[in-house]
């Protein structure tokens, strides 16, 4: 089993766990963490790809993609947490599935 395959399979597993959390869990924090796991899984796949060049020199493009991906994920996470925090202070709810009742509104 090549090193790349280990990274790729591990990454796919982490990605699947993250997808499950994002789709199936209701708590906003679980969803944010799930999305981050999906990102981390993808980054594992990309990082493992770097050493697959024929001459053994590391391919820098996947690493550049991971760096950019991390930046984007941080921004998405920050926005998600900001929305979750304000939603909680406005409604007292920790998930987006329940309809806020009339009394919850400011």
């Amino acid at each position, binding site marked *: 089993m090549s090193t790349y395959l280990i990274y*790729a399979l591990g990454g796919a597993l982490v*990605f699947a766990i*993250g*997808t499950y959390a*994002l*789709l199936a869990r209701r708590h*906003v924090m679980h*969803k944010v963490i799930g*999305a981050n796991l*999906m*990102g981390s*899984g*993808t980054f594992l*796949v*990309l990082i493992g*790809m770097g050493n*697959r060049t024929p001459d053994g020199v590391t*391919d820098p*493009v*996947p690493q550049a*993609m991971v760096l*950019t*991906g991390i930046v*984007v994920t941080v*921004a*998405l996470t920050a*926005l*998600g947490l900001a*929305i*979750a925090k*304000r*939603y909680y202070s*406005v*409604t007292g709810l920790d998930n*987006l599935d329940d309809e*806020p009742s009339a009394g*919850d*509104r*400011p």
Partner: protein
Amino acid sequence: MDHLPALLIIAPLAGAALVFVTSRSVDRAITCITAAVITGLAVLLVARVLGGGALRYEIGGWGAPLGIDLVADGPAALFILLTAIVGSAVTAYATGYFPVTEPTRYGHGLFWTLWLFMWTSLNALFLTGDVFNVYVCLELVGISAVALVTLKGDAEALRAGGRYLFASMLAAMTYLLGVALLYSAVGQLDMEVLRDALQQPGAAASGAAVGLTLMVAALVLKTALVPAHFWLPTAHASAPTPVSAALSALVVKGSYFALLRLMLGVMPPGFLPGVDVALAVLGSIAIVWGSVQALLQSRIKQFVAYSTVAQIGYLFIVFPLARTGGDVLALALGGTLLHATAHGLAKAGLFLGAGSLMERFGHAEIARMRGAARSAPVLTAVITLAGVTMMGLPPSGGFGSKWMLISASVQAGQWWWALVLGLGGLLAAAYMFRVVAVLMADTADDVGPARAAVRLEWAPLVLAVAALFLVLAAPLVNDLVAISSLVPPGVMLP
């Protein structure tokens, strides 16, 4: 080197940064000047592309495959021009909209910066020729769009924005995994280089196919094609009115354009068998389901948002027709891009008009807006004229696009899509007439005083009238479609 493509990204970015650091009092002035500059640049770009063919711009002079290239071909120039026209009208509307609602409402002061950031990322998304850069631009559009949806800061807006953000995150991560798998199989990111690599025999490796499937699925979620439309109606309806218009008219077109480039510009015909038909079937379901939902909505912005779900469906009929190639491909693509343009103009007009009606009546219930034709004649005209485009009656852009798509379906021997297109027109007539009948009723409901800002009526009217006469611009659209990597050279349009 011609720097026009780069300037179209730099201008709104500079405007956004300037608005953010300067005082609140000049927000509107800077945004209006920026909108005018972008519109001028967009017209220049269209003229340049029509005169000298597609432009390819190497950012920093590096060039593909190492650098990131911008590609300004005909369809990209068309979408940039559409964004400039709709964006200018939305900006004009917003200058009248934001002061008259409570000025201290949470976050409203941030509208101008976020709006110009969204404009920047939309232009970048239309121009990019690199599949990874598509990911970055999509996320920039998504982040600014979610922030704009939540501007009101109340429970409904936050809930809609949060759901939109999670749908957006799911699509983003799926798309990125798709890019990773595609890169691992092919080792390229530039769209033109990818297309050549995928045409090599034996290139249909499973890695590339799985990667492209994930990318297509992610873009379908971003474009809100049924059944992935669940986030759209609440997000578009609970945003401030100028934001609703920009989201429905422009943002869904951004991810759609990326999908179009992947499906027709990167993949060789038949690379993912069955996907093109599946997308068109989902599009047909979207036309019917979105129209029926639009018929059932009691609140006016939800009604307009479900009409968007239906109109998005038309954009997906092109894929099985494109397989026929040649003239049918050019005709179907021309019809699709004309539909996207007509829908962009008419839907922005419809959302802005609906928002103004809500402000006048002080509520959102369609049933209690009787007699608007007398108290708000311009707004009633907006809804009616935009409805003509939604139904596809001549001489509107909706008529031209449906005529071209139906001709393409018949020529391709796939007449069943023509049936769907006809049914969609009837359903659109049903849901539009239901609202127009209420507005034109004899009895009148209470209406607030006429607003001081005439922009709130004229900005949507200009858009609705432009959509109404868009069929006159069909030759321009056809000329632009011919200058595209999506249509093989030598194909003549009717």
